[in-house]
């Protein structure tokens, strides 16, 4: 066990995967000498060679299509998409090929491709550098989708993603790359943590707060703040976005009767809707209030000077907690007014 940053933990996971399996091959833009724009692949090309850590031409469809071909040939490609907003040129190859080939070929061809995507906002970047496109992929059958929130999961789930015979979208919360944590570098990828499981990160009895990726830390802060206010929040880090570990969420909501979901992605059609709906299906008689979503607005990601308004933060999450608890919140006055009419 050692202390390392988030970025370092991913680097360690990649290194281990490259060491363990000669079929693992990294593809991406600027991942070689530069070590990636976030330095996540730092030193890997030097140690494993440019045939294993491959700087590719600047074309995301090309990268993804070649990864498919490599997978056909028995390789396990790990693709880096430089920023969330640059995954769309590869969308066709992901949706029509990566996601469908196993189904198309009745299991004859596997697509053990890991697609690493630094995602989310909060780093003051220009357009297309702060997006949260996960819902496009969770709506795409044939893909697995995970989002990691801490160095240990970053390490372990990356190893599991690479070991998985299914394609995995692996979302890295870029604004958390610098946070540090203890990491045990398991010798084997499996090691207890299933790729599809959520994690209860703080226990609480009054309300369930579900989130993933960058907002897990925000949610923990919110739980602490709420505790000061006498509210006991159970925070669940979803970790796996497809499939979702609904059993864990259901167990919690049956206990608390109240649910808040937070994500940076836009609200309409975001993961919050799927979680709220499925939990309503499964816990209808236990819910004391409708699930509350605290999310990015239904707008393109705004200029960085305004991003703090778009991104759910501690206060907005607490406001949502108040709403779910039926306490005084930003909409109470308005709702009273409306109901009076």
């Amino acid at each position, binding site marked *: 066990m050692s202390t390392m940053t988030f970025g370092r933990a991913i680097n360690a996971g990649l290194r281990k995967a490259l060491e363990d399996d000669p079929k693992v*091959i990294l593809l991406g833009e600027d991942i070689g000498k530069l070590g990636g724009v976030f330095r996540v692949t730092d030193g890997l090309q030097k140690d494993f060679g440019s*045939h294993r850590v*491959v700087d*590719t*031409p600047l*074309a995301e*469809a*090309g990268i*993804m*299509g*070649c*990864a*498919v*071909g*490599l*997978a*056909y*040939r*028995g*390789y396990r*490609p790990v693709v880096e998409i430089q920023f969330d907003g640059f995954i769309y*040129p590869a969308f*066709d*190859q992901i949706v*029509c*090929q990566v996601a*469908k080939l*196993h*189904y*198309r*070929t*009745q*299991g*004859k*061809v*596997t697509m053990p491709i890991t697609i690493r995507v630094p995602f989310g906002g909060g780093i003051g970047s220009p357009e297309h550098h702060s997006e949260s496109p996960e819902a496009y992929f969770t709506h795409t*059958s*044939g893909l*697995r989708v995970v989002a990691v929130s801490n160095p240990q999961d970053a390490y372990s789930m990356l190893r599991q993603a690479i070991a*998985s*015979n*299914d394609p995995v979208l692996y979302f890295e919360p870029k604004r958390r790359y610098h946070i540090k944590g203890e990491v045990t570098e398991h010798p084997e990828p499996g090691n207890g943590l299933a790729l*599809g499981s959520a994690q209860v990160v703080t226990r609480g009895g009054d309300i369930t707060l579900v989130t993933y990726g960058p907002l897990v830390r925000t949610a923990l802060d919110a739980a602490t703040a709420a505790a000061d206010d006498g509210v006991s929040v159970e925070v669940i880090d979803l970790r796996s976005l*497809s*499939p*979702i*570990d*609904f059993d864990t969420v259901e167990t919690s909501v049956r206990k608390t009767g109240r649910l808040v979901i937070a994500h940076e992605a836009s609200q309409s059609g975001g993961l919050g809707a799927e979680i709220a709906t499925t939990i309503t299906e499964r816990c209808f008689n236990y819910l004391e209030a409708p699930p509350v979503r605290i999310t990015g607005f239904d707008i393109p990601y705004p200029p960085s000077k305004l991003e703090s308004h778009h991104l759910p933060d501690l206060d907005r999450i607490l406001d949502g907690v108040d709403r779910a608890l039926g306490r005084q919140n930003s909409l109470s006055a308005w709702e009273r007014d409306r109901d009076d009419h």
Partner: protein
Amino acid sequence: MLVDELSLSTGHDDLPDSEGDNFIQLIAPDGRRRENVEFDPWVLDVSDEQLASLYQDMVVIRRIDTEATYLQRQGELALWPPLLGQEAAQIGSGRALREDDFVFPSYRENGVAYCRGVNLGDIVRVWRGNAHSGWDPYELNMATPQVIIGAQSLHATGYAMGIKNDDSDAVALTYFGDGATSQGDVNEAMVFAASFQVPVIFFCQNNQWAISEPVGLQARVHISSRAPGFGIPSIRVDGNDVLAVLAATRMAMHRARTGGGPTFIEAVTYRMGPHTTADDPTRYRDKAEMDQWAAKDPISRLEALLKSRGVLTPELELSVTAKADAVAREMREACINMPAPAPMDVFSHVYSEPNLALDTQKENYARYLQSFAADHVEGTNQ
């Protein structure tokens, strides 16, 4: 010359010329053997017997095509994309391959699948609607039909990256049409192939049409001119001449096997049938054009050559017909007797690992299907 001035034609209607000396031709439309110092060496070993065998292949795949078209008309297939007219392009290239080479086709390469030894029923499985793919790609070393135009060109390139990493001398060959050359994917494939110098062959069957769009809408210069600008040597070959196609493909194969990197081949041919059985080409092309191409039929010219050499004996004709009949019969039988997929198969192979969420949907659907049976029982009990 610093400025590459091209003598561009002025409208879309004048298609790039597909006649004469601007492509490699070893057998003229009238069946005469034409000399070619550069390409003859690549087919020196082709004996009369082997020519006859190529002839048989072409007759057989034309028969497969005709039979499948009938099957579609009779409602046994949902759709069929004819290869009529493209037999030389498919057999000439398909027969140049080694077993450990890997093919990434579009949807039209059923003749190539035949070369790869596909079971005849497997050819039509997709078009009957029974499955999304007819065969195990690893059994034939050939991927199953790709519907997304051009996507497979990148798969071939990535596969070839793997070949190179493996230090193998196998080759990846991808087929696509003239229309596909407009897709970003095909162009990116050339970028990657050139950059990594991998053993991939881009085999473009320019059959003059992309559904209703003439090739001149996609490209105002020969399609084969595209690749050199990416650093990829290219060959323009008469795609209705099986020997020329064989020669060109062998040359490209050799280059790829010996570390020379990618090659682009434009096989100039013609889609004599409709785009698919759902298409009505009379809406967009005229009889004059079809007649013109009928005169360049790939099978008749080989027939003429074989006749002139005394190879096409009545016995050979008989045996070729018998073979084609047998193949057609086998395909028809396999098609008609193909077991329908089971309802619960819709859920199979979405993932290769267990997926709880999907399993729940599957179980619920099973309960739903059972509920009809249950209803019936309950009904009986009432």
